[in-house]
């Protein structure tokens, strides 16, 4: 068979993404039709920049979901090597394609004769799974510590700010190199850090519900008990893994195991991100606590945590949502950095950072394995930045 021409390659790639296009079109149509009823999300569709950003982000989110959950979009197994396809150029046909097998390497083959296109597509699943969740955890940590620091001030604030500045003064790469090396993983320090960091969502939700329903004990007690039970179970399943230092749950109770490498990467990304979130939340809390509605709540006799979580936090949501988008982008960059230095994730992992790292070794002779993941990462981060910009503009408008 002849290799495909560039037009054919582009057409074939566009066709491979067809479930993504359909999902994107449906999302946009529904959102634009109902945009007046959808609050801040709907307003996004008034700004061109916001729409472009949202489109880029959703493109990768849908690609990740279709590839990761439904096994669509990608053409070959991202880990399997096909003989004779080493470093082949884009559009190269397989030597002996079997029945039902996709007959071309659309974006060529990499140094180990794997399909570049499929690796790029499946790589998005790694990012989409880790980046938003890690950012969310960082926000939980930052909010749970930042609100009291800003609200009470004083010694607590001095101490927590000192800790945050301590972590921020660390060059990120040095921290990664110190935390993610196999020797450190062997000592179990990341597992202990996970134990501490993963406590914060539980503390956050407990305080959130308790402060809200404190006056209605009949509702509060069963609700809290149920929520805590579920969260503790998940918490224990996450932190305990067989063969590591922390193995507290018997295996029949263990819901799922996170592969060691992923957990370490996750923990270090949360750890790096939370001090910045802490600083932002602290600043916002210091600003908002002087407002009249906070004084009104104090006069009404509301508890301090109620004021922090149900008066201050909702009023700080604008900047926090914008920062959340930006921070997912930053987390994506950090994940790429980890992959680029070959830290944490397994070396054959299709995530973009690792793929770029592998492709860079033969970059000036065969640029095609490194470029697709590079552009993928670029477009996702760009989308998140544009989305944050659009959200900022629209939330400032009212």
């Amino acid at each position, binding site marked *: 068979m002849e290799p495909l021409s560039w037009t054919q390659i582009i057409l074939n790639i566009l066709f491979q993404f067809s479930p993504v296009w359909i999902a994107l079109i449906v999302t946009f149509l529904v959102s634009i039709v109902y945009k007046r009823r959808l609050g801040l999300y709907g307003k996004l569709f008034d700004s061109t920049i916001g729409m472009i950003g949202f489109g880029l982000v959703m493109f990768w989110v849908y690609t990740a979901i279709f590839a990761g959950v439904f096994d669509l979009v990608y053409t070959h197994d991202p880990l399997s090597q096909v003989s004779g396809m080493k470093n082949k150029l884009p559009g190269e046909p397989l030597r002996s394609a079997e029945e039902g097998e996709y007959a071309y390497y659309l974006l060529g083959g990499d140094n180990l004769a794997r399909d570049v296109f499929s690796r790029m597509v499946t790589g998005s699943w790694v990012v989409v799974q880790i980046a938003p969740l890690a950012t969310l955890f960082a926000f939980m940590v930052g909010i749970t510590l930042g609100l009291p620091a800003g609200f009470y001030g004083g010694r607590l604030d001095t101490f927590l700010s000192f800790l945050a500045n301590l972590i921020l003064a*660390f*060059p990120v*790469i040095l921290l990664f190199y110190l935390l993610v090396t*196999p*020797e*450190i993983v062997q000592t179990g320090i990341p597992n202990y850090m996970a134990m501490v960091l993963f406590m914060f969502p539980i503390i956050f939700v407990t305080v959130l519900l308790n402060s809200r329903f404190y006056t209605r004990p009949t509702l509060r007690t069963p609700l809290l008990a149920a929520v805590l039970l579920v969260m503790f179970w998940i918490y224990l399943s996450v932190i305990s893994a067989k063969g590591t230092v922390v193995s507290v749950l018997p295996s029949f109770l263990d819901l799922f195991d996170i592969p060691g490498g992923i957990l370490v990467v996750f923990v270090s990304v949360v750890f790096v991100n939370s001090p910045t979130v802490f600083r932002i939340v602290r600043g916002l809390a210091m600003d908002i606590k002087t407002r009249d509605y906070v004084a009104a709540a104090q006069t009404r006799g509301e508890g301090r945590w109620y004021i922090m979580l149900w008066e201050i936090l909702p009023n700080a949501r604008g900047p926090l949502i914008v920062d959340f988008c930006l921070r997912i982008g930053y987390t994506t960059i950090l994940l790429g950095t980890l992959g680029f230095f070959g830290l944490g994730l397994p070396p054959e992992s299709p995530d973009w950072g690792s793929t770029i790292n592998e492709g860079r070794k033969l970059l*000036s002779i065969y640029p095609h394995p*490194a470029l697709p993941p590079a552009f993928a990462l670029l477009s996702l981060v*760009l989308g998140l*930045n544009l989305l944050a910009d659009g959200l900022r503009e629209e939330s400032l408008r009212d």
Partner: protein
Amino acid sequence: MGLFILRRLGVMLITALCLTFVVFFLTNLYPNLEKLAKTQGNFRMSDEAVESWLENRGHLQPMPVKYAQWLGVLPGFVNELQNGTVLGKCVKPGMEPDEIPRFCGVLQGDWGFSTVFREDVSEILATRLGLTGILMFWVMVLMVPSALIIGVLAGMREGSRADRSLSTVSILSTATPEYVSGVIFIALLASSRYGLGPLLNDWGLIEGNAPFKGTATSAMENPTFENFFLPVLTIALYGTGYIARMTRASMAEVMTAQYIRTARLKGATFRNIVLRHALRNALIAPFTVIMLQFPWLLNGVVIVETLFNYKGFGWTLVQAAGNNDIEMLLGVSVVSVFVVLATQLISDIGYVYLNPRIRIT
């Protein structure tokens, strides 16, 4: 002002001590030491042999004691074996037993010995920092003016078409981490088979097959435009967008101030308003941002030096961390922590100095 600087210096000192202790703790955990023993001694050592190797060299003392010895506030570990050889922290190869100093820590200027480069850590640091200094200098020369110009041009007419397009450019550059832009630049400009190189050669615009070199190894002795521009551009690009956005925001804010309106009503030309009234006030905020950008540049330096194989400070960090070179890694961390803290201090002092409203109160 003096008291402020003193307090800041105090906090800085405590931070530096805490951070170096954390690094010390993480690099001196038992698995690292075990690996050290095996690489220095013998790969097939038994567990007992590893233990006695470490014991003889003082690696198994309590962590705070070891840290104090490394700092140089406690006398260094010395141990005389039965056969008369003296082992210890302060012992260098080929040293007579009576020459061994009592203290040998960072405070005495003894940074230890690198197991990978087989050289004194302080000497390696000096040469590598020099190389990175050249890189940083050119990054600053490229980044700061271009970022400020983009920011001022975008911010002086908020909402105009120039503003929109320049803002998009700066968003694009903040979305491009160094390892992405570096890879794209190399593929586009430094590849002899693909990208712009062969095309430019066909048109007779350049001599060789590629306008730039994909590695900067030769730039260590002789930096030229050809081998040094791509690494500099790659680092500068990521920071440019961020500084430009800060400058734009600050410029846009200043342009709505009362005194700008007064100047406008007075009949000053737009050019004069921007250059003489707005610019100075608009540049206060970017100054702090530029200073705080240094720690980030450190990151960029590590990535770019690895990508372009430029053997400076960042490259050394990667080598030291990858090969379990404990004392080298400690030295690298001390320097980078110092850089971060020093830039924070300068940016605080500079902010106070530049802003009369804070300086006077």
